[in-house]
């Protein structure tokens, strides 16, 4: 059963310099109890999608397409029902969570706020629930009255997770939840997220640029580039047998220790991730692609089948239409 269903999503920011297409024609589903990993670098649109699901963008941003959360069309909701759905239907663990806590309020208060704002419980019950949540994320309940500065980075992140779970959402969006953390603390937090997700049967959208983290926590991975999904499939296979050349490059940035292919040979791409205001024509990856051919700058590229339960937007995959230059 699909908890989140996104169809043909287009998100365009309107700026003084013109329209900026941040997300273009994105379609995916997340089922109950499944984790979808969304990988990509700066400017690819992944954080924009997170904001779009809860309609956190400004009114000037143009959002087209369909976003269904538990069957409800989020984009069609009026402000009242929308506010009700926020946090109870889906919640977000924000990027830069270390700064997302109000420094002058106790952390318990901030978690309880999520509950009381949605009128799910009175103040006393909310406090009890908050203590439960803290235990669930591995913090002693007595920390309920601590201020953010009394907690370490990893502990603050756990508070953010507790907050995200406060209203029993069906979907949790984690936007770069471990980026600023030390590798050991990152492992702890990832372990926590994974066990909570299993325990509570949550659907999760995990957004990060670190492909190896996604390989570890997600069931499926979708790779984004220049606002589009360029590859998707089962997590393990996407990471170990990438079909799209960009995925290969991204995976190469997180080599496994012991893999002799990368010893002394750092793998990287020339150029930079494209500016959403200046997306290259045809396949947006072609200026940096090591296997680009003459057809690529004019190619109307789409997600084609790249094997069983796999799709990639590259002319070289098996399901791509054949062209006169490429021989099968």
């Amino acid at each position, binding site marked *: 059963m699909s908890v989140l269903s996104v169809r043909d999503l287009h998100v365009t920011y309107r700026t003084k310099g013109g329209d900026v297409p941040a997300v273009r024609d994105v379609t995916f589903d997340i089922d109950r109890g499944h984790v979808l990993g969304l990988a990509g*670098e*700066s400017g690819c649109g992944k954080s924009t999608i997170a904001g779009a699901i809860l309609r956190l963008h400004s009114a000037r941003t143009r959002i087209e397409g369909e976003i269904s959360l538990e069957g409800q069309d989020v984009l069609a909701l009026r402000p009242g029902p929308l506010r009700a759905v926020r946090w109870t239907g889906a919640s977000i663990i924000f990027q830069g969570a270390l700064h997302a806590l109000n420094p002058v309020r106790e952390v318990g208060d901030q978690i309880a706020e999520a509950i009381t704002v949605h009128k799910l419980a009175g103040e006393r019950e909310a406090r009890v629930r908050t203590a439960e949540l803290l235990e669930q994320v591995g913090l002693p309940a007595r920390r309920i009255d601590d201020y953010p500065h009394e907690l*370490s*980075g*990893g*502990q603050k992140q756990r508070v953010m997770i507790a907050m995200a779970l406060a209203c029993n959402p069906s979907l949790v969006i984690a936007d770069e939840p471990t980026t600023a953390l*030390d*590798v*050991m*603390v*990152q*492992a*702890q937090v*990832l*372990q926590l997220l*994974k066990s909570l997700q299993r325990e509570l049967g949550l659907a999760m959208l995990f957004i990060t*640029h*670190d*492909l*190896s*983290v996604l*390989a*570890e*926590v997600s069931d499926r991975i979708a790779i984004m580039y220049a606002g589009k999904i360029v590859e998707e499939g089962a*997590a*393990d296979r996407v*990471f*170990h047998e990438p079909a799209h050349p*960009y995925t290969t*490059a*991204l995976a*190469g*940035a*997180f*080599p*496994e*220790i*012991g*893999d002799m292919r*990368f*010893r*002394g*040979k*750092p*793998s*990287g*791409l*020339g150029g*930079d*991730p494209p500016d959403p205001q200046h997306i290259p024509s045809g396949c947006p990856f072609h200026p*940096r692609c090591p296997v680009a051919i003459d057809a690529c700058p004019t190619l109307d590229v789409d997600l084609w089948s790249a094997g069983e339960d796999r799709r990639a937007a590259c002319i070289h995959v098996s399901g791509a239409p054949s062209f006169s230059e490429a021989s099968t």
Partner: protein
Amino acid sequence: MSDTALERHEQTMGEPIIEVRGLEVSFAGRTSLLQGFRRDKVSVATAVDGVDLTLHEGEVLALAGESGCGKTTLARAIMGLIRPNAGQILFRGKPLGRKLHAYRREVQMVFQDPTASLNPRQTIYESVAEGLRIHGIHQGPNGETEEELVARALSQAGLRPPQRFYLLFPHELSGGQRQRVVIAGALVLDPKVIVADEPVSNLDASVRGEILQLLLKVRDELRLSILIVTHDLGLAWTVADRVAVMYLGRIVEAGPAEDVLLHPRHPYTKALLNVVPEAGGIDRPILLGEPPDPTRIPPGCRFHPRCPVVATGEAAKLGIEERCRGEDVGLEELAPGHLAACYEAWIERDSITSPLPAPSTREDPRTLGP
């Protein structure tokens, strides 16, 4: 160590160029106005607590560890940006004096944030030429003009044609290009050593490889030595010849990269390698707790409060628990060039009479005991 690894090891190992002996750096905590005036010392954070390290000519040494372990402080002390409280830094065998002007020409730094490392009001040309101007160099060794030296440095850093970049401001370049400019600014003085503090962690993932390739290229072409400070062991695997792992102000393990990363001896190194994410799930033992506070260093082996060997009772079984808890442990050589500061590792060494197998397959780092 296998034969090929040893060969590679000996090939890249040149003469020692920077030697650090018994280095100590501590910081005083917050003080009040009056205390500041009287220079009172309040709580002291010992960032570097007795470090011995050698950087050889032509080698890439990775200094790895979590935040708070002192690796950045150590790098800055080597650069001469922080004055140590104790210990010595030798450059080519001679200790650094108080006047570091000449030293600065030979040892250059590349910082973590390329955007913040460049003065936003200076053009690229001026940022690169700055080093020359500070040292009063108007001519190259073969009579080159300042402009020719700048052009050469920019080219070496991969920005071609260099003239295109002269008049640009940092905000007009991408992150990767900015880092190249910083590297060019370091190369223009023809240094012997580059100290790179997390040189790629602020860059987009697909761009990192290029910058690392550049560092390796300049190491090969110009016979530079590079000290890379990083928290990313995967990066160390990719570029480093040798790795030194730091914990709470001390080096706990050091040796050739393949040895340390594939056959770690210290429990902390093993734990760090365990948690590098990889496909297949995270059901591996993870250290509890947070990176500890440099103002409160535990007695005995400073890792013992978090050490799985102590926690699981292995240490008691081996009879070393008393020492782990009470006696400070130093680095000892376990295999040629491979040192570790751990009582358990020493026992392991002493019990092994045959050389280690070749690192052709990845050993399971889950085994913690002998």
